[in-house]
């Protein structure tokens, strides 16, 4: 038998239910793997909490009252508030902040029986595409020496890829679940805006932020999403719609489905491996019975620029709360303004400061119309492009997830160049749509590449069988043994 940590969530769930393995031994196997790992994927490991939760799961499993995720050990991005467990958002400014409440998404997971292994590393306040902006140091990608895992959910993606947890939560504001999933050969879902509650998640850009799973297989991601999603009266943007059984939707096939290929998702220059991968994806779906339809999303090229106005603007407002008064770091100054300024200067890293300043500038008197209002209008045009494509009976759009494979730590020192990583994922957030990244192949240098499927609002279940066809055709990709 292979190692316990090699079991997928679906496999572990079945073995736990059949009493072939115990939750405590599964949890212990992961804690041992985390201990031995040098990826810096976790900021905080919670062995005591994990043991307690696993023991409670074993009691339930023995009694035959196991729930959907009973005994499944998960890692949680350190942006989700966890009661009694330090939550850092990857920043120094939160200090030893220990929430006195639990985020809705994580509470849903514990209510389904999942086990908390610890809190996963991330870019500071989820602002980054490489996990290099974390105040707790960069995360290493298990796929190679000195490679970034992508970001901002870099710890989540690296931990899932390296089998340090059975699955993980992430958040995605402009690609922060899908891009790291692509760079580590894992599956990542950014659900429709409103599908998962944002309550208790440290806010970055509230009109874009959405929680979702990162897992090893499409099936595991489907299992996790079903438990994460819910109506939550504490988040006024959470939607009152039934949560489908995503797992049951997996095996529907793609016969007769219409898959749109947006011609604007072609970067210049287009790396040959990425081009070939995209064509391969088209061929796989065509061979499985889908109809391929060329579509146009003419405002795609403006999505990133509009995003880098809207997201920093919202961030500058959301991050105003870190003032050294209610929680986190305080650095004294001459007076209260001096205290605010000293605290925020010491507590925020460079990328966060850049974005707060850009956001403050574009919202400031005299510039609001020229920048923020214009960006929000462009955002309407981006959303309209998608609506028009879907009106033509398109079931999903197929695109690459990221413009290239994992790069070296320190390899993209220019902020704007770093932002280009999210060129294919940002439009989806701007329009509030669901997207999934599926591992689809390897680059010339043997590093993972992903394909992205984009769906209609709240039709994550419709994406599942399409993602499954790509996954089955592409096969699974394991990082080289370290």
């Amino acid at each position, binding site marked *: 038998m292979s190692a316990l940590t090699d079991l997928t969530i679906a496999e572990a769930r079945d073995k736990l239910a059949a009493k072939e393995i115990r939750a405590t031994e599964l949890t212990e196997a992961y804690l041992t793997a985390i201990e031995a790992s040098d990826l810096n994927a976790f900021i905080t490991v919670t062995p005591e909490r994990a043991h307690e939760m696993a023991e409670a799961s074993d009691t339930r499993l023995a009694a035959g009252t196991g729930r959907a995720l009973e005994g499944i050990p998960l890692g949680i991005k350190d942006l989700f508030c966890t009661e009694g467990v330090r939550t850092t958002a990857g920043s120094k400014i939160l200090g030893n902040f220990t929430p006195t409440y639990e985020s809705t998404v994580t509470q849903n997971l514990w209510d389904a029986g999942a086990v908390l292994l610890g809190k996963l590393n991330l870019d500071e306040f989820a602002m980054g595409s490489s996990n290099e902006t974390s105040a707790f140091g960069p995360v290493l990608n298990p796929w190679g020496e000195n490679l970034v895992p992508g970001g901002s959910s870099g710890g989540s993606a690296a931990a899932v890829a390296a089998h340090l947890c059975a699955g993980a939560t992430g958040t995605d504001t402009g690609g922060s679940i899908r891009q790291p999933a692509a760079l580590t050969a894992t599956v990542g879902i950014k659900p429709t805006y*409103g599908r998962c509650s944002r309550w208790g998640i440290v806010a970055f850009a509230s009109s874009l932020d959405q929680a979702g799973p990162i897992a090893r297989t499409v099936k595991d991601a489907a299992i996790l999403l079903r438990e994460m999603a819910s109506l939550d009266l504490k988040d006024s943007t959470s*939607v009152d719609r039934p949560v489908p059984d995503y797992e049951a939707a997996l095996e529907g096939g793609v016969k007769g489905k219409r898959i749109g290929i947006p011609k604007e998702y072609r970067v210049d220059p287009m790396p040959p491996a990425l081009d070939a991968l995209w064509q391969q994806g088209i061929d796989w779906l065509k061979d499985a019975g889908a109809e391929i339809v060329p579509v146009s999303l003419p405002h795609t090229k403006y999505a990133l620029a*509009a995003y880098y106005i809207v997201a920093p603007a919202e961030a500058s407002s959301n991050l105003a709360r870190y003032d050294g008064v*209610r929680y986190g770091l305080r650095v004294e100054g001459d007076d209260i303004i001096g205290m605010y*300024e000293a605290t*925020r200067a010491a507590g925020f890293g460079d990328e966060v400061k850049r974005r707060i300043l850009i956001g403050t500038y574009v919202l400031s008197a005299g510039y609001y119309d020229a920048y923020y209002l214009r960006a*929000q209008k462009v*955002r309407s045009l981006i959303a309209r492009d998608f609506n028009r494509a879907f009106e033509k009976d398109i079931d999903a759009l197929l695109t690459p997830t990221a413009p290239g494979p994992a790069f070296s730590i320190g390899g993209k020192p220019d902020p704007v160049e770093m932002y280009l990583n999210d060129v294919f994922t940002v439009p989806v957030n701007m329009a*509030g749509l669901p997207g999934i990244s599926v591992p689809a192949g390897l680059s010339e240098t043997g590093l993972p590449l992903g394909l992205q499927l984009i769906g209609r609002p709240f039709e994550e279940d419709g994406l599942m069988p399409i993602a499954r066809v790509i996954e089955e055709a592409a096969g699974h990709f394991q990082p080289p043994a370290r």
Partner: protein
Amino acid sequence: MSVDLETVRRVAHLARIKVGDDEAVRLQDELNAILGFVEQLNEVDVDGVAPMTAAVDASLRRRVDEVTDGGNPERVLANAPAADDGFFVVPKVVE
């Protein structure tokens, strides 16, 4: 549009972030690079386009106007850098 050093300082003060002299110069370059990048939005014809105000078409729910939470001053203050007698403590603001 580009920002001068004085604007960087003014915006930093609005954002309540202290920046040193060298840092302000570096931030000026970085902000101008980002503002240069977003300049392309001026090419887009947005005449008659309404700004997007919600990611998903949905009207906000209303709820009954009643207290659903509260009465936990200890929990509210638990993470405060300085607290006393049920209050957050800040530097003196009124002489």
